[in-house]
């Protein structure tokens, strides 16, 4: 009886959240799987069934989609590698118990608390070619030749946007890794030192294996975030110059809201969803290891 009552109580408390989740998350996903088979302007109740035409167009007749896809992968690689590497590096240094480490933890974590739009606008000003901090600093130290129109040149626009995101996300992952590092017993490092291991060996044979689950979770999470990236790209460049910073999220947005092709945009969204699902599952499978107990 008690178990039954407990079950009823659990369901009662979960019910409102489940309702919200169903309405605002599950229903739109299922509806997207329906709309992707239609041609729809998004401005009337009339939708024309087109079968798989949206997907055929996507795979055979939309070079912009594939260009955006390629650029999305580029963002993914740059952001994932740089963010996780820097986060792990900072976490390792900050966990040494050095002076000012708490201060640096706060400094590095603070950007992740800011609104992503506010950060994007801030960096637009930093990158501003005439009065921006970056070019002004370069001119000040005599590196005039290094100044660029950061967000308007094809070679620098995407890395500039990526750097903004890395700046914003490093702190969050650093804190995640710090909590992982703090769980590793100090005795293991002492034993390694006694056995003659240097810092790099300690890092490779103790830190990484014992941090593996944390690293795995962080990697999957950043993968999903980077794939879906929208606000910084849209605010900073809107895909410009000449679509060189365009990723899937901004292209899908433009297809729906600017070109009024909601059916086609939804089809792209479905492909993006399936791709993220596959890559997440693959990543989890490939990075699976036996858990190291200590």
């Amino acid at each position: 009886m008690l178990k039954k009552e407990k079950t009823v109580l659990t369901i009662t408390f979960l019910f409102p959240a489940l309702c919200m989740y169903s309405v605002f998350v599950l229903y739109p996903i299922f509806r997207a799987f329906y709309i992707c088979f239609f041609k729809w302007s998004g401005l009337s109740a009339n939708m024309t069934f087109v079968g798989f035409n949206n997907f055929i167009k996507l795979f055979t007749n939309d070079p912009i989609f594939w260009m955006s896809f390629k650029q999305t992968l580029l963002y993914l690689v740059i952001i994932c590698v740089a963010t996780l590497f820097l986060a792990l590096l900072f976490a390792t240094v900050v966990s040494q118990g050095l002076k000012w480490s708490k201060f640096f933890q706060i400094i590095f974590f603070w950007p992740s608390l800011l609104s992503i739009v506010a950060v994007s606008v801030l960096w637009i000003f930093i990158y501003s070619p005439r009065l921006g901090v970056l070019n002004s600093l370069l001119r000040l130290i005599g590196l005039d030749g290094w100044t660029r129109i950061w967000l308007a040149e094809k070679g620098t626009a995407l890395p500039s946007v990526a750097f903004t995101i890395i700046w914003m996300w490093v702190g969050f992952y650093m804190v995640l890794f710090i909590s992982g590092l703090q769980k590793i017993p100090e005795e293991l490092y002492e034993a390694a030192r006694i056995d003659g291991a240097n810092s790099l060996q300690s890092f490779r044979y103790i830190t990484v294996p014992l941090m593996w689950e944390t690293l795995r979770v962080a990697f999957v999470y950043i993968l999903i975030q980077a794939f879906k990236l929208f606000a910084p790209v849209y605010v900073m460049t809107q895909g410009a110059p000449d679509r060189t910073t365009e990723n899937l999220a901004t292209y899908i947005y433009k297809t729906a809201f600017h070109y009024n092709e909601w059916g086609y945009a939804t089809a792209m969204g479905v492909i993006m969803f399936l791709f993220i699902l596959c890559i997440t599952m693959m990543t989890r499978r490939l990075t699976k290891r036996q858990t190291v107990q200590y």
Partner: protein
Amino acid sequence: MKNRKYIIIPLLLMVFFTINSIYARNSKETIEVAVFTGPVGGLEPWLEVARNYEKLNPNIEVNIWGNPSIEDQLRPRIVRGDVPDTVFPRTLDLMTLANEGKIYQLDELLTEKAYGVEQNWEDVFKPGALNVGRLDDKQYFIPNAVNCVGWCYNKKMFDQYGWDVPQTWHELERLCAEIKNKGIVPIALAGNVPWYVRRSFTDLVVATGGVDAFTKASNLEPGTWNSPVFLKAAQRLRNLMDKGYIQPEAMGMNHTISQSEFVFSNTAMVWVNETLEREMRDVIPEDFEMRFFLTPTDEGPAKSAGAITLLWAVFEEGNNSQRGADFLKYVFSPENMINMYKKYNFVGPIDIPLEELGASDFLLSARNAVKEAGEMYSIDLVFKWYPTLDEEVANALTSMLNKEISPEEAVNRMEAEAERIRNNEDIIKYKL
């Protein structure tokens, strides 16, 4: 309870007034108006317009609301069929809605008397202003304003160096050379904002080849987007950049920064539109003087003015579309436009006596330049019809000005996109 009356009486009064207000509300005709609050600065001006309209029409209640992104709220309502009566959106695809028969036609209303004057409503508009709201020869939309693209120049600087307003394109190029020789950058341009570059290019196309060249391109006639006129315009634009007449950092500047460069005298001119004075009013130095001219042609001064337009529309399916259209007639009446100018410095598409209203010399110079040109055309309409063309034209121009592609390659890209649209039967085609 001794003091029951002290509870019952207020309760009865409350019920009475509630019923009374419900009755009063239901006995009034209501219209719903949704506005994009960007151009005039907030909702307050429009609330005032609504209240003034209600004073003239005591049996009408205007439910007016707005924000910078009304489209997000309008879209699901349009799908549901539950639309406001009158709208002033920023990015909503009004063309598709008109094509689907969802927009109220205003032709008949234009032949009625305007509010507060003896003239017909269509006669109070600036010459050519209504053209920008016509589609398939029917009046579906009213332009919120008809601000024209042109050149704002630093009058004090011009007077100081004895520079004259150029009367032909070649004079403009020579002027730029003279300005540059003085160590001043001639032109500021908002290169980081795609539609600013696209508008400057369109302006140059019309100055080079006439409105007809742009009309043909808008109608997607084959070979127009990479015609000799378009190519010449592209080459001229590129030439301005190559010769250092446009700020080298222009491609990284938005309109606020480029306009600031101009008002702080870092450049002699800015290629923008006549709203600059109102937009930058809080930062323009007190002693700064500017005037306006349109892009001259090869033969002489401009013969047409390219108007930037945001459009008002009335929904056919609104609960009170006729009244909604009448509200629009009031909004764009001389009386209301004069009031909006006096209070909010807003210049709409109605011809109002700016001199009598104490308009600035800049505004008067802009108004006179447009009047002298005679003809007005919409610099934006074709790009509202075909948003992918808008994007491709902007992208091609950006790459050209970044010196990544040649003018020939730029116009060929434009023609390729025009052809793709022309050949795509799924895309609705419009004609000017």
